[in-house]
């Protein structure tokens, strides 16, 4: 089933703030084998000029994937979640996420297209502090495999 093109260009209100915790960063860093003390040791991070431990590059996915769920699962858009695969992912950082950040996500639907029987949904997500500072912009391409695929 093709996706509802009327969603193209849609923007959503900011998500509820996510409090980035020091232990969450450590947990994520451990899970991805990130051993740099910047991710674990607040003193090392401070010595490098950060207010607290620094998140590894893909950490924002913790926040942005949850923020995407409401869109992807919206029955009006028409995504069959059992056929979803992750196509592309990109992060463009103003600065790394650090413990103590309080972050909100604004979702935008940037592209909806069909190619070779598959549907593609590209979202752009701006991750900002609650005071409005842009921290990272995240693009996520969702592929919905067609019947033949």
């Amino acid at each position, binding site marked *: 089933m093709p996706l509802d093109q009327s969603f193209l260009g849609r923007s959503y209100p900011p998500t509820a703030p996510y409090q980035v915790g020091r232990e969450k960063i450590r947990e994520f860093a451990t899970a991805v084998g990130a051993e740099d003390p910047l991710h674990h040791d607040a003193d090392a991070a401070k010595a490098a000029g*950060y207010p607290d431990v620094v998140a590894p590059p893909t950490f924002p996915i913790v926040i942005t994937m949850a923020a995407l769920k409401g869109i992807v699962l919206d029955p009006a858009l028409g995504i069959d979640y059992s056929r979803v695969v992750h196509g592309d992912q990109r*992060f463009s950082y103003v600065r790394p996420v650090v413990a103590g950040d309080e972050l909100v996500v604004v979702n935008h639907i940037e592209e909806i297209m069909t190619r070779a029987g598959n549907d593609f949904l590209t979202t752009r997500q701006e991750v900002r502090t609650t005071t409005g500072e842009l921290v990272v912009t995240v693009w996520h391409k969702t592929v919905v495999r067609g019947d033949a695929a």
Partner: protein
Amino acid sequence: MTFQAGEVLPEQVFQVTRADLVRYAGASGDFNPIHWSERTALSVGLPGVIAHGMFTMALAGQAVAKWAGTGDTVVDFGVRFIRPVPVPDTDEGTSLSFTGVVKSADDDFALVEITAMCGTERVLAQARAKVKQRISH
């Protein structure tokens, strides 16, 4: 280190087991059962449990961190997931290997193109990281 244009970056290999996927699921909040349930993975036509694409991307990020010598240099990072990474239920699991080439570099930034392999298959395309040249700290 400071990256030089044309430089070939040494292979980084990561072993990936089912336990790693479970740990990543918990840390990331991505509990899609195709990453831990053989039954679910097979029922949707996969060869078995597969790694989270974002776990592969995270390991690619760690390869970049190792090449750079620090974990805070990436300013832009994108990948395309082109093949699943099956992770067998064995002590060894599977392994992912990453190599890199510095496509361009100036005093401030370098662009690293990453090749990600699982066995003989490329699993990422258009995998690129723009990194800050080494800052002194």
